[in-house]
């Protein structure tokens, strides 16, 4: 199983950033177009990604202003990453004038990480779309 790690520094306090991970109204500002969040262990995580794909799982760990872990997968029948099959951890670390946010997506199938070249052209095309402010979302699900 493989993992994907992304980090970003945000000039905002951890308690401000944390609300964007657990409050559905704030979550839709960055991670989904619709979200159903019940941020407590065992609570629902549902996020409409890319306009037409529901990412689904449940919250596993909540440490206020520090860390959120939820399980994650796609609701489409037959999808190779079914709901709950992977985990996403978002850790917040107070860092001077802001917060370092580290997102780790674990449990992805090796193939999803191993052979990056097959998706490279597609990835660049998607980046171009995103950069123009268009939503490159629904194109990619097997």
């Amino acid at each position: 199983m493989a993992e994907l790690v992304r980090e970003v520094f945000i000039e905002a306090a951890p308690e401000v950033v944390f609300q964007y991970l657990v409050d559905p109204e704030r979550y839709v500002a960055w991670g989904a177009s619709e979200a159903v969040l019940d941020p407590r262990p065992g609570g629902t995580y549902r996020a409409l990604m890319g306009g037409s794909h529901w990412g689904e799982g449940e919250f596993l760990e909540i440490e206020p202003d520090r860390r959120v872990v939820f399980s994650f997968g796609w609701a489409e029948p037959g999808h190779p990453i079914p709901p709950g099959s992977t985990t996403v951890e978002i850790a917040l670390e107070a860092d001077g004038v802001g917060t370092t946010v580290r997102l780790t997506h674990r449990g992805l199938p090796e193939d999803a990480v191993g052979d990056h070249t097959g998706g490279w052209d597609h990835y660049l095309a998607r980046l171009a779309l995103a950069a123009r402010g268009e939503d490159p979302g629904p194109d990619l699900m097997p």
Partner: protein
Amino acid sequence: MDAALKAIAEPRRREILRLVWSEELPATEIALRVGQVSRPAISQHLAVLRGARLVVERRDGTRRLYRADHGEMARLRAFLDGFWTDGLERLRLAAEAEQRALDDRNRDDRSDTHG
């Protein structure tokens, strides 16, 4: 991509896709495991899945073997890469805007107190 969406709209094709996800199988074996479906129907489903590039075919002597095209997984990885990268950038912009609004409000409160 329309072809892929149409291909997975049919439940038996989704079942076939699951069967050949981690192992390569001949059509006869797929027909056995899916059940309730004729060999010709299985062949048709496989043709649709191949047309949508979700399944690839390999010849081994007289046999034809089928497996899921894991290139799709590479594209899925690319999707997640892009999705989380773009998402965190949106998170940064939104949280920083909220922090600035909070800071402004606090400053106004202080100047009210002292002014």
